[in-house]
């Protein structure tokens, strides 16, 4: 039998969730889960939850005082504010219409986001999901900004822009050396990909973008790399077929993961 969540415990759960949100917003950890501008809503929500928690948590100490004085009808702060018409009835039957009684048992689940944060410390999405989603058909929309590709030197290009150019036939980057940044994922056997996840709102709507790397030995899974090379002509021009966009690598450099891993 799961016990009902008492008022002071509710306060504790709210404070814990608030503290987790604050921690995620102050550090860069929120970038693993949501888009960058969510930092401020998270900060505000975290502060808000902590403020909401003050009442019930203080109510804890007040009730203790009341108990010590042998006052059976406790008049803690939260009761004063929380008990409406059901105050008397609530004490008799245990099911008042007041705000404190009748909190659903699922409220216990509020503790889960915090436990997950501290115990599992979920990393940014990586090769596991990218490989599971490898068969998804990815049709890339035209990027808002397109890099000007007219240079002798290698130009950094995002993975989704590379895929979009390949999808358009690849003529716009024929022979042009480019640099792609992403993590390593594998597919059947020895093929490997420079991979990037893109998110719209949060990690739940992530799409994986990947470009096959040829002519270079595969690094470890999830290792971040910079791959410099040229587009393999014709590859990735028809996203419906099995031939993925590919880059003929001249150089593969292992790097540390960037703070913002999503595109």
């Amino acid at each position, binding site marked *: 039998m799961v*016990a*009902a*969540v*008492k008022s002071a*415990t509710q306060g*504790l759960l*709210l404070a814990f*969730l608030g503290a987790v949100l604050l921690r*995620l917003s102050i550090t860069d950890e929120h970038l*693993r*889960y949501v888009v960058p501008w969510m930092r401020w809503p*998270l900060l505000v*929500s975290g502060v808000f*939850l902590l403020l909401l928690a003050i*009442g019930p948590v203080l109510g804890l100490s007040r*009730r203790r005082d009341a*108990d010590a004085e042998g006052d059976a009808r406790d008049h803690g702060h*939260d009761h004063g*504010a*929380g*008990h*409406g*018409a059901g105050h008397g009835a609530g*004490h008799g*039957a*245990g099911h008042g*219409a*007041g*705000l*404190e009684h009748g*909190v*659903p048992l*699922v*409220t*216990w*689940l*509020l*503790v*889960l*986001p915090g436990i997950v944060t501290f*115990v*599992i*410390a*979920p*990393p940014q*999405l990586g090769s*596991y999901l990218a490989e599971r*989603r490898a*068969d*998804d*058909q990815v*049709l890339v929309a035209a990027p808002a900004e397109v890099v000007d590709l007219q240079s002798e030197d290698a130009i950094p290009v995002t993975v989704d822009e590379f895929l979009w150019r390949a999808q358009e036939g690849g003529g716009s980057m024929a022979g042009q050396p480019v640099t792609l940044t992403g993590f390593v994922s594998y597919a059947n056997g020895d093929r490997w990909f420079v991979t990037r996840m893109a*998110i*719209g*709102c*949060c*990690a*739940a*709507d992530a*799409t994986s973008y990947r470009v096959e790397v040829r002519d270079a030995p595969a690094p470890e899974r999830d290792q971040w790399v910079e791959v410099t090379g040229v587009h393999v002509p014709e590859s990735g021009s028809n996203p419906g077929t099995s031939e993925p966009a590919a880059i003929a690598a001249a150089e593969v450099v292992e790097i540390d993961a960037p703070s913002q891993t999503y595109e």
Partner: protein
Amino acid sequence: MSTGSTGSTDTRTQRPFGQTEVVALGLLVVVLLGRWIAPLLDSASLSTWSTIFLAIVIQSTPFLMFGVLLSAIISILLSERVLQKVVPKNPVLGVPVAGMAGVGLPGCECAAVPIAGSLIRRGIAPAVALTFLLAAPAVNPAVVVSTAVAFPGQPEFVLARFVASMLTAVAVGWFCLSRGSRLPLRRLEQLPTEGTARERFVATLRHDFVHASGFLVLGAMLAAAVNTFVPRSIVDTVAGQAVLAIGTMALFAFVVALCSESDAFVAASFTAFSDTAKLTFLVVGPAMDVKLASMEAGTFGGAFARQFVPLVVGTAILSAVLIGWWLL
């Protein structure tokens, strides 16, 4: 559900370690020892599930907070006179008005549930509040813009989504109106009447947040599991069959529980599906998904949710097919 009778409460607080102290101790252990427990649980599938679960929860919490804040304002601060002015007296007219009012709430679906609850609490016809609940996440400007970005060069898609979502909300609203008092809506709890306005405001805030957030976490757990373990390519296998494709997209929208501001990008990636099937995904998702169903069961009662959820999903599919056939 509650067992918080006075007797047990009193005996618990007299123990040296009550519930609150035990929970506090547990949380302390988690915070301090978490880093040592983590390697024991190292598995790619668990960590992926955790990332998506946490992402859904922290993405939704600020929106829920916003909704709860607005709901407390409606419940406590809005005067009777203003409320009477804004909402038409005739609920038959109120239903489409509530649908259009949804355009003004730029937020995810999580914000809409507590707001609808507070409207009912203030004596507004449930049908009107429910129409707002269904319309707001689907027709607000943020959703319209993201849909236009996800379907470039297809303005008719944006229009179709708007019309089909509005049709769903208004149709369900009028149906609920015709059912009237036979709607098995749980009587919403009384608001605090004691204390100053500020105390009542804070108590309402806390009450609404605590009541909705547990269900939000539950929905996020389920949606994260689907996201992690069901590859989208499985869904693709039925793309060829018209009827099956529409049903599958509706089911998928229900279980993945995406944010209505980003679901258009996911819908656009289902290149193998017909436009009508994609539209179904976009109309069902904001109106009803596993996260919303869970929160609605918590706010309005399980008996209500068991009727409301299939009603909304069915209506959404019908109107998406109808509008898709007409506009796309």
